[in-house]
């Protein structure tokens, strides 16, 4: 019965990250439009805007960070599995679990905690950029802890799926 609850938790997490990933993937469209807009205003009309440069960095950073967990869900992140491929599926999953606990979670938890501190510092001073436009930096800095959170829950889901596979031999 307990395992059923874990299964439904993993499925819920997968649905969340599938949804978030598909939403955040679209950030690339305004990013492209913005760059084209900038080229036209600056190169063609000779009237550069003060805000496109920073704005495109915000969109770029938000795009690749916020879809990271979605990438993990779809196994998009490069891995060197050429040696473990020789072992059984079971061995592979055990090795990956070791990596999750010794590398993935320490890394993500450090980023999550320090990311929260980093974002709070920015919010508490209403930090803005030094440029002429002077946009607020706190939304962009908040992306770091959100990314870490999404990765953390996706990591939990992956670990659940691996443990269930090891226990029951079923793939979710």
């Amino acid at each position, binding site marked *: 019965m307990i395992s059923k609850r874990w299964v439904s938790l993993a499925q819920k997490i997968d649905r969340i990250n599938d949804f978030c990933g598909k939403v955040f*993937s679209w950030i690339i469209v305004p990013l492209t439009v913005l760059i*084209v807009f900038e080229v036209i205003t600056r190169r063609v009309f000779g009237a550069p805007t003060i805000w496109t440069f920073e704005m495109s960095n915000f969109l770029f950073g938000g795009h*690749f960070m916020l*879809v990271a967990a979605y990438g993990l869900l779809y196994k998009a992140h490069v891995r060197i599995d*050429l040696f473990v491929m020789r072992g059984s599926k079971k061995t592979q999953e055990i090795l990956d679990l070791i990596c999750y606990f010794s590398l993935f979670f320490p890394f993500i938890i450090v980023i999550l905690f*320090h990311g929260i501190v*980093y974002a709070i510092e920015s919010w508490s001073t209403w930090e803005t950029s030094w440029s002429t436009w002077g946009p607020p930096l706190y939304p962009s800095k908040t992306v770091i802890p959100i990314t870490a959170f999404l990765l953390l829950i996706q990591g939990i889901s992956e670990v659940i799926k691996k443990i269930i596979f090891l226990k029951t031999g079923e793939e979710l």
Partner: protein
Amino acid sequence: MSPEFIAISMFVVLIVFLFMGHPLAFVLGGVGVIFGLITQGWNFFGMVMTRIYGTMDNFVLVAITLFILMGNFLTMSGVADGLFKALRVLFGPIRGGVGMAVIVVCIIFAACTGIIGASVVTMGLLAAPFLLRYGYSKELTVGLVAAGGSLGILIPPSIMLVMMADQTGQSAGKLLMAGVFPGILLGVLYIIYIAITCWINPKMGPAIPREELEKIPVSRRLIDAIKYALPPLALIFTVLGTIFFGVATPTEAAGVGSAAAFLMILIYGRFQWKNFKDTIFSTARTVTMVMIILIGATTFTGVFLTQGGGKAIVDAILGLGLGRWGTYWMMQIIYIILGCFIDWIGIVMITFPIFLPIAKALGFDTLWFTAMLAINLQLSFLTPPFGYALFYLSGMGLEGIQLRHIYRGVVPFLILQFIGVVICTYVPSLVLWLPNAMIGK
């Protein structure tokens, strides 16, 4: 613990975990965090946040995202199909002609895309069945598709060169230009090889039978070639031309290029909402794959550099007494060996903090040296057991093609790639002429 000991153990632990099949990005980040916690303590990671934010707030790296989008749009537009069909009949009458046509399409396609997956898969699906049907040997077919497709990441636009520029603090525009002639050189070497082997042994790659060619009049062949060659050539000129003439930065050129590639989808009538959506999603997955490795790597190097441990390894290598060129070739050979096991992003992230200081200490030009490593990495796509091009090809399930054909087929192309490395080493102007001639530096 001495810094040398920590630096070396960081590398050993990294290598061990790397081969356990966990995503590279998290291995880099995780090893960095573990060593950071041991040697620096918890509060050290406030500094790492600044490094991570620096990766997000980086206008040059925006080009990576947009070049990936551009390549995916271009694949969706189907322009490679048309171009290949046109060039096939144009080159058809000569022995090995269809194979040469594939390489030419690859060079043109490479000048429009920055990744290798797109070109290898496109050419594998598109050209390989034709080559096999015309009676090309299986080995030659897979070899030339793998080698030609891998040019996509060397000939600019190239996400690899943008990333290398970022890692070494060089102008992305200049490094992109440095990749042009070496990439074309490799393509020409492939064409010469195909021409010679097929001329000596027509069974390797016969000409297209005359009856088939006669169905298509010469005028029709030329019109088709122009129809499908002009739009990509215009795109190449827009993207690379604007960078070369200093009209646009690589990022701006990539944005305009993506928009132009999207227009090509519309022009060739390939727009379908479902495909468009899937392209946006798959682009996001590729972008995050590349960029999150940078996040992991910046964590790793952040810890690594505070140890001052890089210097220990650099000094040790310089102290081997191999001399200037001995050390150079040793680094090239290390790249070939690493290329057999690790993918290019991993190799760049692991070796650059050590190799670049060595090259500087030995008085090598940084731009040229970085480009040489980029050329060398062409081999990494073809070297078994871990080569992207091999994976893509074997995953496609081409009729009658087995792994042994692929392994045997890439050997001559690996030799040609190495010849390319040697040529560019001793004729550095091949690399440096174009970036030095650039107007917008």
